[in-house]
């Protein structure tokens, strides 16, 4: 009979994730006694910074929470603000916001698939190392990322911290020539997105089915991006205003990122959760592509997240083409809403999952208080739960380096955006 393992494993810096995080594991008698996903990125205090700001400042400021998902923050914020003003955007604005958001999905997912996650599955420790043997695939991924940036830039003036979104719509509508050029690029990239799905499906994906709750939006019979109700695969179906009645954010002593629970249980948000809950709303031709891979959804294997992202890249490209098919550049890009005081909510599907905002505004439209719940925070508890299960199955008697790498792979499945997760810290100042 072998001795059961006792000891500690530390991953001081998580590689190929955005932001600063670490993983600490204590093993006692062959079981994981303690596991902490430690986030030590400094908190950004955005919710406090927004107090007293006017509505447009909120939209431009929250984009700076993250350099890879600024559109998501802007869209959740503007949805919340417009709900306070009792304003419904025009169908054109709703459609174009959905297109702009597609751009963010494409660029974020492409970066993750090719530069962060794929090296894991192919046994490389970095994207440059992988690029030597897979140059065409890496270049394809970077071209797709560029298409995503082009979409964002078309509506927002630039791809990093874009500036096009405002209450009531957009500051300007892209001209017809710009839209035609964009549509041509999107159309030319569809075949590459299809090839990407096929390629990702051939990666050696570990078997690791687990029991978890998938939470996402469900949006009026279409694949959710810019709004809808919050649903789960365990029967949850609530309006976004009811979020706080079921979900609870709290601080843990070892992390500057908040954790969240659904009815006191961990849950998953993100591409796999979206796909699990909304597979039927994908276009028929895309579902055929997926079925041809042999991988079935809903899936209980977090390692299928990389395929979920590849699928969503294709979806976002085709959706962008559909929504811009009869593009009219003469459309009025915004309608001025009438400001009023109140409390409002916005919830959209950031690349990494649902992003929930709540604002209280005064009569001048200035922020009284703000609450922002990013997807990476919501996944913290699920990540730790996943790590315990996955590492135990992997074998705690494996060498430390192997356990470290497997732990990092599990974390990278969630594509955590640690900068987003550390936007908040309970802040009180005593002045004497």
């Amino acid at each position, binding site marked *: 009979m072998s001795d059961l393992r006792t000891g500690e494993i530390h991953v001081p810096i998580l590689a190929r994730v955005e932001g600063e995080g670490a993983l600490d594991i204590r093993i006692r008698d062959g079981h994981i006694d303690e596991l902490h996903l430690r986030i030590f*990125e400094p908190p950004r205090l955005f919710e406090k910074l927004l107090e007293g700001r006017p509505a447009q400042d909120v939209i431009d400021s929250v984009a700076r929470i993250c350099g890879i998902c600024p559109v998501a923050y802007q869209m959740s914020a503007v949805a919340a603000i417009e709900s306070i003003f009792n304003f419904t955007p025009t169908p054109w604005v709703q459609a174009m916001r959905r297109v702009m958001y597609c751009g963010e999905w494409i660029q974020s997912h492409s970066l993750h698939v090719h*530069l962060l996650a794929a090296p894991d599955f192919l046994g490389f420790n970095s994207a*440059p190392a992988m690029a030597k043997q897979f140059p065409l695939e890496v270049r394809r991924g970077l071209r797709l990322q560029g298409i995503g940036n082009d979409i964002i830039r078309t509506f927002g003036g630039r791809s990093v911290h874009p500036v096009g979104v405002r209450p009531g719509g957009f500051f300007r509508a892209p001209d017809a020539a710009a839209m035609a050029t964009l549509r041509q690029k999107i159309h030319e990239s569809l075949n590459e997105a299809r090839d990407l799905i096929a390629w990702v499906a051939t990666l050696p994906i570990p078997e690791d089915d687990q029991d978890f709750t998938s939470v996402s939006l469900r949006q009026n019979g279409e694949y959710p991006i810019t709004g809808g109700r919050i649903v789960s695969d365990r029967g949850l179906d609530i309006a976004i205003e009811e979020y706080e009645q079921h979900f609870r954010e709290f601080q843990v002593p070892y992390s500057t990122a908040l954790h969240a629970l659904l009815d006191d249980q961990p849950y998953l948000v993100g591409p796999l959760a979206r796909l699990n809950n909304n597979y039927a709303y994908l276009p028929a031709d895309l579902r055929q592509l997926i079925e041809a891979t042999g991988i079935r959804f809903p899936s209980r294997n977090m390692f299928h997240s990389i395929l979920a992202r590849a699928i969503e890249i294709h979806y976002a490209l085709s959706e962008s083409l559909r929504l811009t098919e009869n593009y009219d550049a003469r459309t009025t890009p915004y309608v001025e809403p009438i400001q009023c005081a109140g409390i409002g909510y916005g919830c959209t599907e950031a690349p990494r999952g649902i992003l929930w905002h709540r604002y209280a505004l005064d009569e001048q439209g200035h922020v009284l208080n703000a609450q922002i719940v990013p997807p990476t925070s919501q996944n913290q508890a699920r990540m730790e739960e996943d790590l315990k299960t996955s590492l135990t199955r992997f074998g705690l008697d494996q060498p430390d380096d192997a356990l470290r790498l497997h732990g990092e792979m599990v974390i990278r499945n969630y594509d955590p955006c640690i900068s987003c997760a550390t936007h908040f810290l309970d802040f009180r100042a005593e002045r004497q």
Partner: protein
Amino acid sequence: MNRLYIFGLGSPYGWDQVGWLAADQLRQTFSGQPAIVVDMLSRPTNLFSHPITPMDWVIFIDSMMGKARPGTAQRFTTLALPPAHQKFSSHGIDLNTTIALLASLGFSTEKIQIVAVEIPADTEPSPEQTFRRCQALATQSLHAEVKSCVEYWLQFGVYRFSTTHELSFRQNTHVESPPAGSF
């Protein structure tokens, strides 16, 4: 046709604009040269949206905080590129990683050059007018240095890393750094 790509790196904010501003000026300077392609990138990996091949040459232009006098433009080979001492949250895809990707994809590092202008290290805000004046000087310095590199490339087909070539070329083209006290 081999091309020379000039990529201005940066963002719309503060000193980080200098790479973009210089690239914008260079685009106008070389607008009649079909072999010269200039673009402004918010992320270095955005260069792959261009049909760039290992036969092409690349110059990255940016601002930097080093130890030289503010306003001084410096050229670096990929080997001489100083490591980033502070990593900002940019999802890990910085210039060094992008250059490593280029090398992995068959690009010769001899065809990659970085030109950066030193910016002030202090973080205290300056009056807007002072900042704009200094920013314009830095942009001018960066533009002049890159223009000199590109003109050499157009004439000789290589970058001017040879000291002998550089000295004689400088005598003919008269490249200057901003005078002391400009910043």
